[in-house]
């Protein structure tokens, strides 16, 4: 697996863990351990997303920060397997 795919798959794992914690917290809103874990994974995810967008471009259109180019349409798309 190349670095781009490895980074994407890390983001996918963080997203899944965050969704699981989200569902748990919906029914256990005062669980401090779940809250701490949510906070930790939120940070891991945002670091990974930042690294990804810096190196490989935006994952979603609103992450385009280039003032000269609409980099969103540059290949490959985030969901493309290469």
């Amino acid at each position, binding site marked *: 697996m190349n670095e781009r795919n490895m980074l994407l798959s890390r983001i996918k*794992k963080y997203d*899944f*863990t965050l969704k*699981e914690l989200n569902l748990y917290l919906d029914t*256990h809103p*005062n669980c401090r351990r779940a809250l701490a874990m949510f906070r930790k994974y939120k940070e891991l995810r945002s670091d990974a997303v930042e690294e990804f967008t810096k190196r490989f471009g935006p994952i979603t259109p609103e992450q385009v920060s280039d003032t000269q180019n609409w980099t969103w349409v540059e290949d490959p798309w985030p969901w493309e397997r290469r």
Partner: protein
Amino acid sequence: MNLDLFDDMEGIILHEREASLVSDMKNNNGNGSMTRFPKNTPLAMAYVPFQQWGETYGDDEALSRGTLFPELDLPFSKGGADR
């Protein structure tokens, strides 16, 4: 035969069940210590245990198992429970 009696019974059971759930929720007081089952469990009602915080998988395993919680990792395979 007095059918009113049956109507009342139903009302009583529902009321009892509701009261036990409400009192459990009140006792919970937002400190996150809901027990696995309500204190009172009237007969003939089905209960689902309330999940308690326990072990968690790593993010890698969680995605491949389809759940973050080993407790909830219950793959249903053909052949039934005693396969």
